[in-house]
């Protein structure tokens, strides 16, 4: 049987809500309510990594070529990366 990700009934709640598998918050996707997503224009990107540094969700990653992108499972679309990107390589695009 597949193990339940989290308790469903009150009887299944661990005493004190203790989580015995540390780091399992990463399996919980939190990006679903994003209204806008960041889109990178790699022609303008200078690979400075300032978007990576400022992302409050730590969901921006560097690829093999040194360009950046956001993990949309966790990105909330706050736009801080776009605001901080001084070559203006990031645009916030509406989610539809």
């Amino acid at each position, binding site marked *: 049987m597949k193990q339940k990700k989290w308790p469903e009934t*009150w009887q299944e709640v661990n005493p004190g*809500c203790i*989580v015995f598998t540390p780091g399992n918050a990463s399996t919980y996707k939190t990006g679903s309510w994003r209204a806008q997503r960041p889109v990178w224009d790699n022609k303008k990107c200078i690979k400075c990594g300032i978007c990576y540094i400022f992302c409050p969700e730590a969901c921006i990653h560097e690829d093999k070529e040194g360009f950046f992108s956001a993990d949309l499972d966790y990105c909330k679309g706050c736009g801080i990366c776009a605001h901080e990107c001084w070559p203006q390589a990031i645009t916030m695009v509406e989610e539809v």
Partner: protein
Amino acid sequence: MGRRIGMEVAIAAAEAVALCRIDVAAVYPITPQSHIAEHLSDIVHDGRIDAEFLTVESEHSSISACAGASAAGARVYTATSSQGLMLMHEILPIVSAMRLPVVMGVANRAVSGPLNIWNDHTDIMPQRDCGWIQLFAENGQEVIDMSIQSFKIAEHPEVMLPVLVNIDGFQLTHMIEPMEMPTQEEVDRFLPERKPFATLHPDNPLSMGCFNMPDIYMETMKAKDVALINAKKTIIKIWNEWAKLFGREYRPVESYKAKDAEVLIVTMGSMGETASVAVDEMRKAGKKVGLIKIKLWRPFPVEEFKAAVRGCKTIAVMDRALSFGGAGGPVATELKSLFYHDKDRPRIADFIMGLGGRDVRVEDFITMAERASEKEDDTYEFLGVRE
């Protein structure tokens, strides 16, 4: 057999806690609790017990330090009073939600303002709903016994909840009383080493005090409520065990000359002693008056209370706190709600008494019992207030 002692009750509370082999105490002194903090600090610094005494900067920190130490597996004690308890308020439901067996002594004192350091129950009543087990001690012996029992109750695998012992400020804390102090061997036999459900340790990482989304918070609250309600049977079991070992019986609700009583006085804490003298006098005068003392306030012993008052027509409740602008004092409103669906429910008369250290005399209980049987309306009244 324990040792017969004559001792100030606050000092005796600290001695009793020391017998429980605590690992950590984080206590911030506040009148009238200070003697507990000071004496416990002496015991630790004299090397009589192997414990840490944390000199924290506030009560918010003392209860937080207790939560952390308890989560790491330590046996933990703190004590406070009045404003200190109010400052702890934010952390109290967290400690119970994390199911940490912290034990706390509360030297009950009025809440400011105006500033008043004397005894009533206005500090504990705002903490009523914090999910802690709450006991009320009536005399010095009960303070010693309940302090020791509390650790066993709190740490029991079927409970795992914090316990607080209400000790009326000055009226109990500063009295020198004859008491029996159990020996170390007796306490060791009664109280096993703490075996935590889970502990914080770098070798075996886990998360405590986690976040709940709306889809699980209600289930968590239900689980906490059931845990607190279920704690009652373990409390009674532990009290029975105590009676076998020490010969002193404890019950969630105690009765005194309650059989055939037409009026039953209800008290919590030290006033039970004064009330029992009043009951004796009224019985001598041929009046059928008895006394009910609530020892377990949370979880509330519904069945035990109903059984104790069965057949009685009038209940006179002493409330030592009030809900400003509400339907009555916290004890009376609680009792009224218990009987709402009962056909033969008793009349419950609510008297606000002894606020901020105002003396409550034997005569006041006699007046209260008389007024309760005359009272027509359902309102609460202040007894002993100047008009």
